[in-house]
C-alpha cells in the first residue's frame, strides 16, 4: 500500500503532463522544427559524420532545454510549490521530479535518435550498442543537470532565456563526451573502445545528482 514518496511525486508529474501537455506539446513542436531545419540546411551535401553526430546532440540539447525548463516553473506560477513543500521533504520532491525528467528526456531522445537516423541518410550507425548506450547515459546526465537548473530558474525573473545560458557551461563536458561516443558508434568501434566515455557519463550523472540532492533544499525552500 505505502509506496515510496518520490515515486508518488513522479506519478503526479506524469498524470499532470497527460492532462495539461505543457512539456509534451512544446517538445514535439521543437523536435519537429529543429529536425526539419537540419534536413533543409543539409540539402544534398555530404556532411562529415563528425558534424552529423554533433548536430544530433545540438538537437537533443535544445529540445531538452525547451521541455525541461518548465519542471518547476509551473509549480511556481500556479502557486502549488507551497502545497508540495507542505506535503513532503525537498529530497522527495527532487527525486520525483528528476525521475520524471529522466523518463521525459529518454522518450524524447530515443524519438529524436530514431527520426534522425531515418531522415539523414549519411548518418549510418555501425555500432548500435554504443549508440543507444550513449543516448541513455547522455539522457540521464541531461536530466540530472536540468532538474536542479530548472529549480534555480523557477525563482528568477527572466525564466525562458536563462535556462540555456546556465545549462550550457554545466552540460558541455557531457555533450562533448556524448558527441565523441556517437562518432565512435558511426565509426563502428568496439564497445570496449567507448567504455571510457561511458565511465565519464556515469561519473558526471552521479556527481550531478549527489550535488543536487545536497543543494536542492536551499533552492526549494524560500
Amino acid at each position: 500500500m505505502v509506496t515510496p514518496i518520490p515515486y508518488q511525486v513522479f506519478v503526479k508529474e506524469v498524470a499532470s503532463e497527460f492532462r495539461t501537455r505543457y512539456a509534451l506539446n512544446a517538445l514535439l513542436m521543437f523536435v519537429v522544427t529543429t529536425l526539419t531545419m537540419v534536413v533543409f540546411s543539409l540539402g544534398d551535401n555530404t556532411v562529415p559524420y563528425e558534424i552529423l553526430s554533433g548536430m544530433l546532440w545540438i538537437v537533443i540539447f535544445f529540445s531538452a532545454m525547451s521541455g525541461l525548463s518548465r519542471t518547476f516553473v509551473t509549480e511556481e506560477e500556479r502557486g502549488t510549490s507551497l502545497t508540495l513543500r507542505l506535503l513532503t521533504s525537498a529530497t522527495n520532491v527532487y527525486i520525483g521530479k528528476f525521475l520524471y525528467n529522466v523518463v521525459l528526456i529518454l522518450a524524447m531522445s530515443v524519438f529524436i535518435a530514431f527520426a534522425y537516423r531515418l531522415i539523414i541518410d549519411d548518418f549510418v550507425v555501425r555500432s548500435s550498442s554504443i549508440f543507444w548506450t550513449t543516448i541513455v547515459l547522455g539522457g540521464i546526465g541531461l536530466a540530472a543537470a536540468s532538474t536542479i537548473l530548472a529549480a534555480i530558474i523557477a525563482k528568477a525573473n527572466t525564466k525562458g532565456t536563462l535556462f540555456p545560458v546556465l545549462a550550457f557551461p554545466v552540460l558541455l563536458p557531457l555533450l562533448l563526451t556524448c558527441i565523441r561516443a556517437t562518432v565512435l558508434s558511426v565509426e563502428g568501434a568496439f564497445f570496449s573502445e567507448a567504455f571510457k566515455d561511458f565511465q565519464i557519463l556515469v561519473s558526471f550523472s552521479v556527481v550531478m545528482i549527489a550535488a543536487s540532492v545536497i543543494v536542492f533544499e536551499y533552492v526549494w525552500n524560500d
Partner: protein
Amino acid sequence: MTPFHLEVRNVRKSFGRKVLFDAVSFDVRLGESFAVTGKNGSGKSTLMKIICGVLTPNGGSVRYVVNDKEIPLSHVAPHIGLVSPYLNMYEEFTGEENLRLFAKIRGIGVRQDDIHGLLQRFGIFEHRNKEARFYSSGMKQRLKYCAALLHRPALLFLDEPTANLDDIGIAVVREVMREQRQRAALVFATNESEDLSFADRVLDLSRLKIG
C-alpha cells in the same frame, strides 16, 4: 490524541533589510487554540508559513515535539494541516484526485469513505469529479479544508479561515474549529473579531516591538 508541543522561539523574518517581525515566541499544546492577528502586511501569513516549515526564518527556532520526541521540520508533514490563500490545488486534477494525491505524497493511506465523508461535509461531494480549475473560489476554499483535515492532523493551521466562504461554509468551518480545539490543537490567523472567540490566547503582530 498523543501529547505534543509546538515551541516557537524568537522567530525573526526580514525581507532584504526590512524587518517584518522579530522575537516572536509562543507555545501550543494539546487541546489549545492560538490566534494571530495584526494589520494587513504585519506578517500573519508569513508567520504561518514559517511555523509549517515551508519558509525559513532569518532567526529563531520552530520545534515540534510529539510523544516526547522531537520531529525535524522536514518530516512534520503527516502531523499538520494548513489552509491558506497561498496554498493552491492542482487545477488539472479533480477535487477527489487532489485529495488522493495529497494523501499519497504525504505518505499516508486513506479510505474512500473518509474522502467522500469530508467532501460531503463541506458540500462539494457532487463536484468531486470536476477539475479544480472549474471550481469557484468558495469551492476551492472548501477543498482546501478537506485536504487539510484528511489525515486528522495534530495541528491545524488556518490562515484567514472564513475567506471566500458563504454563511453555510462559515458555519461548517466554525464547527471544525471547535472540534479541532477539543480533539487536538488549532492555530489560526485572522482579523475577524468573531473568530477570536475560538482562541485561548491571541498574538497581535502589529503591536509587536520590532528591534
